[in-house]
């Protein structure tokens, strides 16, 4: 059996706001195996970023984690001390942020930032500046960046969005890692650039043999990049399945509804969209959070929170429709 | 869709609920920070002292033409909580009266400065890149090229020392802050799509400046105003300290500190009490201002 890199179990996260506690994550389960590429797909504000930020424990100070555990290579991230955590961050997992404009320090050159990351990666032999420089050049070259030397001397604002995102990829893969988390790395990029960046990301991750968590809005991106997909809605993983299987047979009403909304290149008109709005996190529905919008909701859905049910190999869905003794 | 009755109903409730929520939210954010509540309390208390001085002060007439050489330099005691000064006047009563001057100065100055500065800033910001904007902004640079207190002193030097003149002196360079603030906000707000769409609809410049842009500057301007009250009172106190404020017998905080400073440390209360009064009122406005800032900021 392949080794599990990340195992999130029943994670709850809430944010303190002036309207009270926003109960964002509502018992999230997620596992990533070694070398596996998974993606989390969901609409805006469903808690994707919150989920992955909690892996690195870089949540905003208002956040609290009342329940759950996050096992990274077997040890619980939530119980780690500072040095352990630092080790996790410098050599365990790394993260690429959504907005490449915002995720590079504007007043340092790319070179300075890359070298700092390499310097503190815990690798041996990086005390020398020249070594660090070489590593940085190499990392950039691997992302197919032209003229790495020039890039290293540039400030972030001098680069285009695609280049910045490639720099971020280079940064996160400059040193050996077990896991790369990419939070919507291509949302702000053009399709052609997105295509290139995703290809590079995929290729680099595969070459280095590390695992990938890719967050995206787009089923298309998820399909073309990853092996397995988590569908997230309002702080819950409603469904997970290997990519092919999910597209062949989406089970959760939300997955189905969401997929139908996506315009197809092949035409066929637009679907109606999902009625209603994402419910408010301060006062979430008691049972299934999708129940108020669900066309197939049953009375039970409004009362109880559905647990994940195995419906196939690596295919789980959190819906009473598939509960053996539920529903009907 | 709905009958008239229904409509009225739902509108009514919406209006009310919305306003109520808005206010409650504002207050929640404001009161989240206990210090801003303290600030509000201080400011209100000081305002009450100033307004009701004749009824609240132990010796209200001591703020006017009054001397009592039998009671000079009396240290703080039961009768005179802050002691008496060199001609026997009750310092507490005078401080309470002096708050009036401080408020008048602050409010008067803001009343002069804010409308002018804001309009200038709106014009300059909206026309950024055109000569009118450059001109206005260079003029503000000129006014800011001398530290404001020095500018105020120079202006005071040539005017008769009165409250109104010190108000003018402070205002001479103060408007530039509002001009700059509103300028920078306007010059970015004018690129907001809602401004563009108002323009495209064909709305007049006045509408755009005062209805579309100005309301969005209110928050920042209002925050600055509360914080500035403190600054203006401080500047006024500094002017008073060199004898350029209210003239005797009307008490002014800065003048009281200056006059009392001659008697330090023997008769410390003559100077220290008004100095504390300055601190309290300015502290009040600062705390309040910070609270207002938190309240109006979008961040939680």
């Amino acid at each position, binding site marked *: 059996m392949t080794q599990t890199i990340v195992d999130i179990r029943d994670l709850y996260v809430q944010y303190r706001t002036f309207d009270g506690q926003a109960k964002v994550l509502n018992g999230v389960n997620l596992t990533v195996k070694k070398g596996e590429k998974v993606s989390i797909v969901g609409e805006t504000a469903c808690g994707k970023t919150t989920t992955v930020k909690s892996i690195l424990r870089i949540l905003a100070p208002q956040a609290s984690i009342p329940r759950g555990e996050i096992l990274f290579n077997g040890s619980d991230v939530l119980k780690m001390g500072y040095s352990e955590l630092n080790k996790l961050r410098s050599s365990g997992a790394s993260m690429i942020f959504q907005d490449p404009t915002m995720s590079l320090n504007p007043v340092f050159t790319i070179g300075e930032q890359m070298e*700092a990351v390499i310097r503190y990666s815990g690798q041996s032999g990086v005390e020398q500046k020249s070594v660090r420089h070489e590593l940085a050049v190499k990392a950039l070259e691997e992302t197919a960046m032209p003229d790495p030397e020039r890039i290293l001397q540039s400030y972030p604002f001098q680069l285009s969005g695609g280049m910045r995102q490639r720099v971020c990829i280079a940064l996160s893969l400059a040193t050996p890692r077990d896991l790369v988390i990419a939070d919507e790395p291509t949302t702000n990029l053009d399709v052609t650039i997105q295509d290139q960046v995703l290809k590079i990301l995929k290729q680099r991750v595969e070459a280095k043999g590390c695992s990938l968590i890719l967050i995206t809005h787009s089923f298309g991106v998820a399909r073309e990049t990853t092996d397995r997909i988590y569908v997230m809605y309002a702080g819950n993983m409603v469904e997970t399945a290997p990519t092919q299987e999910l597209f062949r047979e989406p089970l959760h009403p939300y997955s189905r509804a969401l997929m139908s909304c996506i315009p197809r290149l092949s035409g066929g008109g637009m679907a109606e969209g999902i009625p209603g709005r994402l419910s408010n996190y301060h006062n979430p529905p008691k049972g299934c959070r999708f129940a108020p919008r669900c066309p197939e909701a049953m009375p039970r859905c409004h009362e109880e929170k559905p647990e994940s049910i195995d419906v196939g190999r690596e295919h789980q869905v959190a819906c009473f429709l598939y509960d053996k003794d539920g529903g009907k | 869709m709905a009958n008239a009755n229904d409509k009225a109903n739902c509108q009514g409730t919406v209006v009310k609920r919305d306003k109520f929520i808005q206010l409650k939210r504002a207050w929640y954010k404001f009161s989240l920070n206990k210090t801003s509540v303290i600030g509000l309390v201080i400011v209100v208390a000081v305002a009450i002292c100033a307004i009701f001085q004749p009824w609240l002060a132990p010796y209200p007439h001591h703020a006017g033409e009054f001397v009592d050489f039998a009671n000079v330099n009396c240290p703080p005691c039961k009768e005179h909580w802050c002691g008496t000064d060199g001609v026997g006047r009750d310092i507490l009563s005078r401080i309470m009266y002096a708050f009036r001057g401080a408020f008048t100065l602050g409010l008067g100055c803001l009343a002069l400065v804010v409308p002018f500065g804001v309009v200038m800033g709106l014009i300059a910001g909206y026309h950024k890149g055109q000569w009118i904007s450059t001109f206005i902004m260079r003029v503000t640079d000129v006014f800011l090229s001398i530290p404001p207190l020095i500018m105020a002193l120079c202006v005071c030097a040539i005017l008769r020392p009165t409250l109104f003149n010190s108000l003018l002196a402070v205002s001479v360079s103060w408007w530039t802050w509002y001009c700059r603030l509103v300028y920078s906000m306007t010059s970015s707000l004018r690129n907001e799509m809602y401004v563009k769409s108002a323009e495209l609809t064909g709305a007049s410049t006045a509408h755009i400046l005062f209805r579309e842009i100005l309301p969005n500057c209110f928050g920042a301007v209002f925050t600055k105003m509360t914080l500035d009250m403190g600054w203006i009172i401080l500047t006024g106190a500094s002017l008073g300290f060199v004898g350029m404020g209210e003239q005797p017998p009307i008490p002014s905080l*800065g003048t009281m500190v200056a006059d009392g400073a001659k008697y330090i440390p023997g008769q410390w209360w003559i100077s220290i009490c008004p100095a504390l009064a300055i601190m309290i009122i300015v502290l009040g406005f600062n705390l309040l201002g910070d609270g207002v800032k938190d309240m109006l900021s979008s961040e939680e």
Partner: protein
Amino acid sequence: MILTWLKRLGTYLFVLLGLSVLIFIISRVAPGDPARIALGPRAPESVVQALREKMNLDKPYVVQYFLWLNDAIRLDLGDSLQSRRPVIEDIKEYLPATLEIVIIAGIWMIAWGLLLGILAAKFTGTWLDGVIRVFSYLGVVAPAFVWSIILMLVFAYVIPVFPSSGRISLGMAPPPRVTGMYTIDYLLAGNFAGFKDAFVHLILPAIGLTFGGIAQSARITRGTMVENSRKDYILAERAYGIPERKMLFKYLLKPSLIPTVSVTSLDIASIFGGAFLVEQLYNYPGLARYGMQAVLNKDLNAIAGVAMVLGCVFMIVNIIIDIIVARLDPRVRMLGGEN
């Protein structure tokens, strides 16, 4: 790049010109006859009339302005009423003293402002943050003169550890003039006792001047650091496992310094303004006290001179601050800031 700076220079020149108009207006709208005031009440009318003509007071204001400006450019600012010397001489004499105080105060302010700001940001929400917050409120709620009075009371009177007046102790010979700043001149002359004496005289007034500035910059530093610490790039750097100390003092501090440095200009303005009262209190013979005397005595040539010179000095300060900001912020440096 050069072009940007040239353009800035043009702006500064324009501002100076505007400033001169402003100062001219201030110095000429005042009531009274400058010639008569200059010569004293008993001078014969003929002498006064002659001076009046010499001072061009009989010409229209516009002409007067240009003549005045022409003189001013050649550093001829007229004679001071109080000292009877050319104002420029007085300025040469006093400016270094005030600069000395402002520089010391500025350094003191920036050092403490940053330190406290960083500490407060680092320990957000702890008691230390609270203490610093209280301190910064104290700093901004009282004007410089109040602090000076209190400092003088405590450190010159109750515990007399610092001198309360003058630039150097009595009987101390001033150093040979090189820069006019005693501390530096003493050092240049190798006289350490003198340096110590001059320095000790600077301490109280300089500290008195900086309370407000320290508080302001501490607040702003804390604010921007806290704000920036939520930025993605800081999260990213943290997520790369860069040690906290390094984060704080390098990756977080540098971008956060930009607003702090930018508002330093305001703090320096308040130091200059405060110096007008504080030098007076400490009987410190600097340009600010000279200016204050000029204001009190309606010595218009001196007021104009002081305002002009302080305007220029302040402008230089602003240029320096611009340069520092440009150094800190590559966007400003390479794209040339807004405006």
